[in-house]
């Protein structure tokens, strides 16, 4: 375990922490498993929290503005949509070029994550990580060839780690007491 990396991460987290009050907190809990599927979903949340609809709308807009909510919408399962092959694609990039290459890779819609992470030497030399999706293994490999050409990655060592099995997939949970509800399916919990 690298304590230096960890304490740096901790520091950056504390700097970026949003200022949330008890109502924001309750609102986040109310929507984190999904929005109600009824005509006025925000009125339904308001009813559950005992506040009014306009307040819910204003607070959600605020949370989006602060970047606490990246966006609202659907989260797809790649596998069920025909993207059966996924791989973690990792690169060993000189430190001063990581941002440039990260930005280049992340513009393609079949790249769904692109992070810089620490190397763990000597066992793991790679410091730029992407998730890449394709219809098949060949499709993924072709897309990688395309990326190498587009982002001029010819000289950089890379490795493709195809997935064999997925054991667990759930959305991340941000409140400990919600942990046990994580497998809960979104329900139509509307009073009206």
């Amino acid at each position, binding site marked *: *375990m690298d304590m230096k990396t*960890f304490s740096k*991460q*901790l520091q950056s*987290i504390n700097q970026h*922490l*949003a200022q949330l009050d008890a109502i924001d907190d309750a609102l*986040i809990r109310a929507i*984190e*498993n*999904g*929005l109600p*599927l009824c*005509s*006025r*979903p925000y009125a339904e949340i308001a009813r559950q929290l005992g506040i009014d609809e306009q307040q819910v*709308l204003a607070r959600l*807009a605020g949370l989006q503005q602060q970047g*606490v*909510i*990246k*966006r*609202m*919408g*659907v*989260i*797809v*399962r790649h596998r*069920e*949509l*025909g*993207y059966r092959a996924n791989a973690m694609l990792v690169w060993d990039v000189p430190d001063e070029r990581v941002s440039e290459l990260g930005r280049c*890779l*992340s513009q393609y*819609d079949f790249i*769904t994550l*692109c*992070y*810089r*992470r*620490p190397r*763990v030497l000597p066992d*793991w030399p790679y410091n730029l*990580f992407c998730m890449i*999706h394709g219809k098949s293994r060949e499709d993924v490999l072709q897309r990688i060839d395309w990326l190498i050409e587009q982002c001029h990655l010819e000289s950089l060592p890379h490795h493709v*780690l195809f997935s*064999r*099995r*997925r*054991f*667990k997939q*759930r959305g*991340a*949970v*941000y*409140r400990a007491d919600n*942990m*046990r509800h994580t497998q809960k*399916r*979104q329900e139509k919990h509307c009073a009206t």
Partner: protein
Amino acid sequence: MQLDQIDRQIINSLQEGFPVTEQPYAEVAERLSLSESELIARLERLLADRVLTRFGPMFQAEKLGGAFTLVAMSVRDDDFERVADIVNSFPEVAHNYEREHHFNMWFVVATDNPKRINDVLTEIELDSGYSCYNMPKQDEYFVKLKLVV
């Protein structure tokens, strides 16, 4: 499951966002030339069939004080199932993949408190007898978050 053209339109459109207004479904339905009730019914079905994992907000966990990290392990093939069971039993393990590499187990640990990450990794190491290679995010390059279907 089979998706028709309307399902695809809904998925493509709602990956770009969902309005925060009084009647958001009606707004989206109008854009897609559907009725509000048909849009809601189709979303229910896509969720029930697990084409969609979730419909709602995507959070930036760090802003909420939560923490994530990616962890790699190199597990002996004949020991893989035992270790996978141990790792998967932790509620903080968000997902876990077996991958083709010397490092063959890759999982994400998500906690509501950054200090808890190290505790979880230490517990996993003690229970499994294998080292955790901790690879926390240092920088993020923003992706489109949209898969055209």
